[in-house]
């Protein structure tokens, strides 16, 4: 195997150890979708504008189309499939998106959720303006920002433990 053209990589994806051989030109997003069949990560523009392919790499929101799979070697990747609890209980953000209609077609949702998971980890009590800045790199074409922002704020409140689970403000 010519290691400049394809590489064997090992990484953790959603808590699971994964070993795979990847073409070095493949992006992380294509690797997740085509090789691992984790199709929750959506590809919109494929040049870093729409944010739909956002995943967490070592906890940091990252555009999956702007990183090569080979660069994820040794890293820990969380996709939208890895956000809910192991027993299937939705993450407070997912629950709030569901309750408050934070999605319509759902295409942007994986990127919105992963980005907001990072935001609420850094800042458990964001203002509305801070939420809007955080998702400024995520395009929603159903014009759903208002409900998305509401859901993010509601989830933050739930996660701070000041509201009953379910995320209703």
């Amino acid at each position: 195997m010519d290691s400049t053209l394809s590489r064997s990589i090992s990484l953790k994806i959603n808590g699971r150890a994964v070993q795979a051989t990847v073409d070095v030109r493949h992006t992380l997003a294509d690797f997740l979708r085509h090789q691992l069949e984790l199709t929750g990560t959506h590809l919109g523009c494929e040049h870093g504008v729409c944010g739909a392919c956002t995943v967490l790499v070592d906890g940091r929101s990252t555009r999956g189309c702007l990183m090569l799979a080979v660069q994820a070697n040794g890293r820990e990747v969380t996709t939208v499939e890895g956000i809910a609890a192991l027993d299937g209980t939705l993450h407070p953000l997912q629950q709030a998106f569901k309750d408050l209609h934070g999605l319509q077609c759902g295409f942007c949702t994986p990127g919105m959720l992963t980005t907001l998971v990072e935001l609420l980890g850094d800042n458990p009590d964001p203002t509305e303006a801070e939420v809007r800045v955080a998702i400024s790199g995520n395009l929603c074409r159903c014009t759903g920002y208002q409900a998305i922002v509401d859901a993010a704020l509601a989830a933050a409140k739930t996660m701070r433990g000041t509201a009953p689970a379910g995320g209703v403000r």
Partner: protein
Amino acid sequence: MKPPAFAYHDPGTVEEACTLMATLDNARLLAGGQSMMPMLNMRFVMPDHLVDLGCIPALSAIEERPEGLRIGAMTRQRDLEHSAAVRARCPLLADAIQWVGHRQTRNRGTIGGSLCQLDPAAELPAVCAALDAVLTVQSARGVRTMPFQAFPAGYMTPSLEPDELLTAIELPDWPQGHGHGFVEFARRHGDYAVVLAAALLVVDAAGKITRASLTLGGIGPAPVRVAAVEQALVGQVASSALFRQATEACRALEAMEDVHAPASYRQQLAVVMSRRALDAALASIAQGGRATGAAGH
């Protein structure tokens, strides 16, 4: 929208990277990938070899030196954003970084990558112009330094040889208590600016300006230092009225024209952004010169 086939290299040291760049044909460097990856995906660049600098730990460090900060070229924009040293020693950079792209791109994007991409409306080249940054460049042929002023060779073109890589950026300190202001007009948060302005001021006890720096982005092919305004300010008592009068000179600057805005619109923005940046710089002196820590819009 998939990258073309290339051979991938991930050297562990700067020397190895230099050797690769000296020996490989049609090789390109990959820094944070937030501009290079789109260009690969769209096949605007078709390298035979891609040399990833992401595995060279020596290139990512924020070093505090007596004369200023020395920042490794592969330092992620996010690390600059969260650095206490940057906030304390270089508040202009701390404020400007809030305007760079989005959190997802700042998590990967690097200072060196942004400088070498050299978008005329990008924030980090403007900060380097404002601060008279000194750049260190390395190749298998040796190490050289150059003032940022000599770095742009033209539109989005740094004056680097094909085998050279930018390794570090030195940002000389301004005196404690100096004023700084960074303002930007963009259609949406995270976009490149239409026009941005960066200002630095030192004011003496009598309120007189003893040192001034004013930089505009989005006007010319590279960041523009407006020496005429800087010279008009030094020796005068700082005030909003003075800034209003002095920044009128920005209207005479030669400005780019593109799909986003005609030249006349950019010249108007140059005046307004310059004035606001200077006002912000003066206001920051009253607040002790601290970084505001938020994109002010």
